[in-house]
């Protein structure tokens, strides 16, 4: 008996260990490499940073290597106004984008949850369908819609709402449109899951107890969907903070977001250490909502 349970124990450990190993190799190891580069200095070498660990010199090589590491890049990130403003811009765009996505996504999710059971699978399929096409191509398509002589301006001119074409492309508005469009499914699905779970009689009970339909929404439907709101917002906010493609394709030269900054530092300026430092700071900022979301998810499962 004991033998069997021990065998089962090992099987369980292997089952948990494999994904753990995967995360170590493909997440923790790259993270440590980036952390190490962020503590180095840029150099016109191959690879473009110093110091390099020289094993051939034994212990002395290791101490020399450690002595060569410093926090200089982090000081630059925090003191140079360019980097600070990129972080602030990213935070602002991510916050506004998350709120806009929530405002668009909530009525959508609510309508899906209240739709008849027959229609729900189809509605979910429609929400997921955009994933069938490449993200890059879908964002590219928005250029054709938003540009000066694009579909949107042509349509508005034809309607007579405007007389001169609007300048939307290469502005922050275009970036926000791109964010809401691209991240809507990540908002709608957790919201739908939270809204669909609740007894429809709860809303009737609220009305029976004296609430108008609007009051019933604020006092019952909304509080009960709070886990979905938090889940959706975390799922949208985190990737938007580091978003590169949308600001690069739809944003103007003035929408400097962190993702784009990292790209520029890595590939244009070949300053790997500063790019790594920015990436580490971004990760530290994102750790707050990630940990919060995780705690909510764990307590949600336990409760």
């Amino acid at each position, binding site marked *: 008996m004991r033998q069997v349970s021990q065998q089962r124990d090992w099987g369980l450990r292997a089952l948990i260990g494999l994904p753990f190993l995967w995360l170590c190799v493909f997440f923790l190891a790259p993270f440590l490499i980036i952390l190490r580069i962020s503590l180095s200095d840029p150099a016109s070498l191959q690879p473009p940073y110093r110091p390099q660990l020289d094993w051939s010199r034994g212990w002395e090589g290791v101490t020399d290597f450690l002595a060569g590491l410093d926090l200089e890049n982090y000081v630059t990130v925090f003191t140079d106004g360019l980097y600070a403003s990129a972080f602030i811009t990213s935070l602002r765009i991510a916050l506004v984008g998350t709120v806009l996505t929530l405002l668009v996504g909530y009525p959508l999710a609510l309508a899906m949850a209240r739709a008849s059971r027959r229609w729900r699978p189809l509605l979910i399929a429609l929400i997921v369908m955009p994933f069938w096409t490449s993200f890059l191509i879908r964002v590219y398509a928005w250029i054709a819609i938003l540009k000066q002589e694009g579909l949107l301006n042509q349509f508005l001119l034809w309607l007579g709402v405007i007389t001169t074409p609007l300048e939307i492309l290469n502005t922050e508005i275009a970036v926000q449109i791109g964010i809401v469009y691209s991240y809507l499914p990540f908002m709608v699905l957790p919201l739908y899951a939270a809204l669909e779970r*609740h*007894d429809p*009689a*709860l809303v*009737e*009970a*609220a*009305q*029976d*107890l*004296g*609430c*108008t339909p609007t*009051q019933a929404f604020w*006092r*019952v439907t909304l*509080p*009960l969907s709070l886990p979905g709101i938090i889940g959706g917002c975390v799922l949208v906010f985190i990737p938007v903070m580091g978003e590169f493609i949308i600001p690069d394709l739809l944003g103007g030269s003035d929408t400097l977001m962190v993702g784009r900054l990292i790209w520029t530092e890595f590939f244009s300026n070949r300053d790997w250490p500063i790019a790594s430092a920015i990436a580490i700071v971004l990760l530290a900022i994102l750790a707050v909502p990630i940990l919060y979301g995780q705690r909510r998810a764990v307590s949600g499962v336990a409760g």
Partner: protein
Amino acid sequence: MIAPATADSAFVSIHGVSKRFGGVTALNGVSLDICRGEFFSLLGPSGCGKTTLMRLIAGFEDPDAGQIAIDGADLAGVPPHLRSVNMMFQSYALFPHLSVWSNIAFGVKRLGLDRKAVASRVDAMLGLVQMQELAKRKPDQLSGGQRQRVALARALARQPKVLLLDEPLGALDKRLRKETQGELKRIQALSGTTFVVVTHDQDEAMALSDRIAVMRKGEIVQVDAPGTLYDRPANRYIADFIGEMNLFPATIAELSQGRALVAAKGVPGTVTVAANSAPAGEGYWLALRPEHMRLGTGEGPDADHWLPARVIDRARLGAQVAYRLRGKDGDMLQAVVASTSSDASFAAGSEIVIGFRAGDAQLLRD
């Protein structure tokens, strides 16, 4: 004070109400009067329209035709939150994010009372259902019986003119049900509120109600006190639905002075039963309750009519013995006798006779 326009016999007045969902008729011209302070039940199998009728009173659905009035006030076009009606939902529909106290306070807060009045009303309700100790708990920390009591307190807290209860005991186990029946009666008497219960459980309706409306296919078949429904069912459907009944297909051979001479299949000779203005002919049933049946080894003086039968099985139910028997034509018959009587000892397989008095027999239509 101006007296209500309608008499108390029509505190809740439902007149000619019809409701269709798509192609399905849920209610077809239902008229019903419920008295003030009455414990009234809507009884019927699922799909008979009882739940629809309750949702119409609560205001969750609008009737296609007809009027509903409470205490003389027509409810047409009045939304649920403005009706002096509250409902205890079948699922209880307690708000999971609120404590027991806040659940009960939810409706009271919308009455425009001050904070103190709300608190004292909620505390009184907690006392009524004996839930003071659990006021801080969330619904998912309560047992089924406790949730039921919170739901009842929440619905009563607004002091509605009518309380609707949708299968109030349906989610409870059998033991708790008996206990809760008494509890419901106590609270109804204490609050003086008019209770309208929807149920498919005839025992529950019989035990609780002052009057019962039995429904079938969107129509009301009979409205009467439980005893009257049992003793004088309006037709075969009611007789079958309320309690057990032995039924023999019957034909009226002759009618005179409120008496009918009836020929019933499986019963030798003719039976004389009371019958008012029934047209002669076929399509009748001779109906007898199991407790009115007599058993014997041979025809005796304690019954007017006897027919041969064989005992299929015999079950002791406390103070009574229930027999299932098969008549000559293969039809099933039931008899219930006191376990102390001499009729109580026939073994399964015995060939005996089963009899009844003509005065106990009823003539029913389909």
